[in-house]
């Protein structure tokens, strides 16, 4: 309390402002409520955007790290050759290169059967993890079964399945892949590459260590393979992530724009409150001026009032917004702590700043009006 007293002694405008606001608590409270709603709207809509983005990014997983190289059908190239793969291997400095052959085949176990995509891969370990069993570095024998197919056929590691009449021991059931993937294993079976007919490859997946490495690899592959003719098309999932990020940027700006409208409304209500209270206090302000208080001090006093309303609304709004963010993230992402990240902090600071700014701005006109009234006029009854 003495710290506050000290502050009030040093900044008399604050003392006067504080007393004036406590004069009509309901009115001040309602003005603060307006700011609270505005700040809450901006901050929580901003954080809502962050949550959506985080959720979407989680859905997308690591796909930004993968690129897919496929033959350019428009140029009449139907498959990638061994030479192409070698060139890709040379172009990629940082990541695993997984050539893929694929076919649709009948897969069965006992009396259950299904037609699924069968991928031939030499090194599926670079792309997939096992749910049960083990994914070998080099797949020479046996099969890996995607989680969906495994459920359908009711297989687990150690069982045997038959793929177009050929029998495989199941080495692993693959972990279900969330989100988008270039070569989704969920409803597929993966067998050694020699077992799928053909000499070339339908696509080559490059799994890099980072999005940036993926991008560099893509550039290098285009340079190496497409120099003379457009042999391959290179698909970077990163372009999707970039697009998604851009989309969420726009969405966020839009949400914050909506929130700002409520703050503008709050600003108008503060303008109204301040105008009313300065009109009511006309005589008092006249007395202040008569006993030697300068115009500037009157302006400071009224701006301090508006500022206090803004700060009170901003702080309460920010606290409520954090609460809303925690609830939202707990609900949507199952991770309440996701609220506490830099982007959200920015939104809160932004919202509080807007709140205080709007209040002070709304106080300008009433302050100017009160300060410019001649004390003689104000003192006349």
């Amino acid at each position: 309390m003495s710290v506050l007293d000290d502050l009030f002694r040093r900044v008399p405008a604050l003392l006067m402002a504080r007393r004036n606001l406590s004069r009509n608590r309901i009115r001040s409270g309602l003005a603060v409520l307006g700011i609270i709603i505005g700040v809450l709207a901006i901050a929580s809509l901003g954080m809502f955007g962050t949550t959506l983005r985080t959720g979407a990014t989680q859905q997308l997983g690591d796909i930004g790290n993968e690129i897919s190289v496929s033959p350019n059908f428009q140029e009449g190239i139907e498959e990638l050759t061994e030479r192409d793969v070698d060139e890709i291997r040379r172009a990629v400095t940082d990541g695993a290169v997984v050539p893929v052959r694929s076919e649709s085949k009948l897969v069965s176990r006992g009396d259950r059967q299904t037609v699924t995509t069968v991928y031939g891969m030499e090194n599926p370990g670079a792309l997939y993890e096992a749910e049960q069993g083990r994914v070998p570095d080099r797949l020479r024998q046996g099969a890996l079964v995607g989680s969906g197919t495994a459920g359908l056929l009711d297989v687990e590691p150690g069982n045997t399945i038959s793929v177009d009449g050929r029998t495989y021991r199941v080495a692993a059931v693959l972990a279900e892949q969330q989100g988008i993937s270039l070569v989704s294993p969920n409803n597929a079976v993966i067998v050694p590459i020699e077992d799928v007919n053909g000499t070339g490859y339908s696509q080559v997946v490059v799994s890099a260590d980072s999005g940036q490495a993926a991008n560099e690899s893509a550039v290098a592959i285009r340079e190496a393979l497409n120099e003379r003719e457009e042999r391959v098309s290179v698909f970077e999932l990163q372009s999707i992530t970039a697009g998604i990020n851009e989309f969420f940027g726009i969405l966020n700006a839009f949400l914050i724009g909506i929130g700002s409208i409520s703050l503008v409304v709050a600003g108008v209500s503060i303008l109204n409150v301040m105008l009313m209270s300065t009109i009511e206090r006309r005589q008092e302000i006249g007395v202040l001026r008569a006993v030697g208080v300068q115009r500037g001090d009157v302006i400071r006093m009224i701006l301090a009032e508006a500022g206090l309303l803004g700060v009170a609304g901003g702080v309460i709004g920010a606290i409520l917004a954090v609460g809303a963010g925690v609830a939202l993230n707990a609900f949507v992402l199952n991770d309440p702590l996701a609220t506490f990240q830099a982007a959200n902090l920015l939104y809160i600071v932004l919202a509080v700043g807007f709140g205080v700014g709007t209040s002070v701005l709304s106080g300008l006109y009433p302050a100017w009006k009160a300060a410019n009234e001649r004390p003689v006029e104000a003192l006349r009854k």
Partner: protein
Amino acid sequence: MNHIIELQRVWKRYDTGGEVVEALKDVDFHADPGEFVAVMGPSGSGKSTMLNVLGLLDTPTEGTVSLDGQDVTDLSDREMTVHRKRFIGFIFQSFHLIPTLSALENVEMPTLFGDDPTARDRATHLLERVGLGERLDHRPDQLSGGQKQRVAIARALINEPRILLADEPTGNLDRKTGRSVLDLFDEIRREDDVAVIAVTHDPQLGDYADRTVELIDGRIQ
């Protein structure tokens, strides 16, 4: 020539849309330190207008205002405010205390905006002097009319003014309370050498005044 305040040939006209009201007509007036001047006259005769001009709240249409020998007729708002703070204490008929501030804070109020470390002590001392040493933390609505006027007097004295201007200071007080306020004025002008100029309808004020000036229809009689 040691007038603390002086009006020379002051005119004040109000232009009220076509009709011009002459509130002060060629007024010459002065007051000396320690002098108690009563200004009397019928309603609408220009008493408050004259007090406002004396108090640098209003500027005359014509003529000059001198404060402590200095011409202060055409000062800027800022300079007028500075001079008001330095030279002049105001006392109003309806007290005009700030309802949200305590008695002590009301007395300190003219010093609030500005660095004045001894203000609180002076304010306490002044309230003791006007007999309100026990009421420092009371709000105006917890004080009687006479007590409010005493707080207002203490407030008027906080910056050690040379002139006290009072517009019907006893107008809202009963006879007895009015008398005690007038006694206080008398004490102040004797002890502090302050010029007291009071507008009044109160006949008992005549007993205290050194001099009574009569205004009728904007002219000094």
